[in-house]
């Protein structure tokens, strides 16, 4: 009888051990998948930031009266909107402590690209050394940094 009880005890211990191991492995796998998903979101957002920078350059070196500018401004707003969707999603699932928030960094980029005389038909073409390009580049760079910081903060 004692042997039977001992065998049952061993069996139950093995089952509990197996369950714990399975639980730990599942948790590690889920964490890995989460990090992978966030990396995909961050990479997608960084690509969009680069595209917006290129579009903004093409947009501002032409005058507001140029026939292409309406289409260019719509493209810029559309890309900014897609970027905003990704960033709003990331903001909800990743919190960066003691840093610029993703929303603020995104807002700052949008302002650098679309504030002042954006969509004005009377806007003059900018020279390639116009300060607006430096500002857009700085805001885009900062947003990419914050995106990387948000990825690094994922445990």
């Amino acid at each position, binding site marked *: 009888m004692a042997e039977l009880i001992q065998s049952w005890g061993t069996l139950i211990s093995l089952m509990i051990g197996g369950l714990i191991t399975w639980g730990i492995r599942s948790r590690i796998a889920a964490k890995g998948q989460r990090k992978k998903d966030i990396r995909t979101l961050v990479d997608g957002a960084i690509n969009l930031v680069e595209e917006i920078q290129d579009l903004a350059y093409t947009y501002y070196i032409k005058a507001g009266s140029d026939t292409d500018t309406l289409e260019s*401004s719509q493209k810029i*707003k559309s890309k900014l*909107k897609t970027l905003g969707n990704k960033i709003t999603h990331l903001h909800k699932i990743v919190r960066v402590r003691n840093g610029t928030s993703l929303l603020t960094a995104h807002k700052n980029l949008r302002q650098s690209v*679309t504030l002042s005389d954006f969509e004005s038909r009377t806007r003059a073409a900018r020279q390639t050394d116009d300060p607006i390009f430096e500002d857009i580049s700085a805001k885009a760079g900062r947003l990419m940094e914050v995106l990387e910081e948000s990825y690094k903060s994922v445990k």
Partner: protein
Amino acid sequence: MTTVKTMIKIANDFYDAPTGRFPADGPYNGERFRNEYLIPALKKDGRILIDLDGTDGYGSSFLEESFGGLVRQCGYSSEELHERLQLKSEEDESFIEEIWQYIDEAKGS
């Protein structure tokens, strides 16, 4: 807190592709939205819910002229606007932060 009495969904009530600051920039500009939608709503009692979702996106120039212009051009105080306006954007929450920035920065100018 006052209850919401007016709701403006920009994409449905105004246009789904708002553009620019002034009439010269296009028919669905920030100045027109401010004068024809925001101000009439503010003249009524109660809070106003502004739903920003569903458009093709906003340029900051449109947002600044619409909302910053309420303080700069029309004499509303930022305190009153904080009391009366409720902003909603599930698609891009940064629009809310941006609009409040324009309202607050236009204060006293």
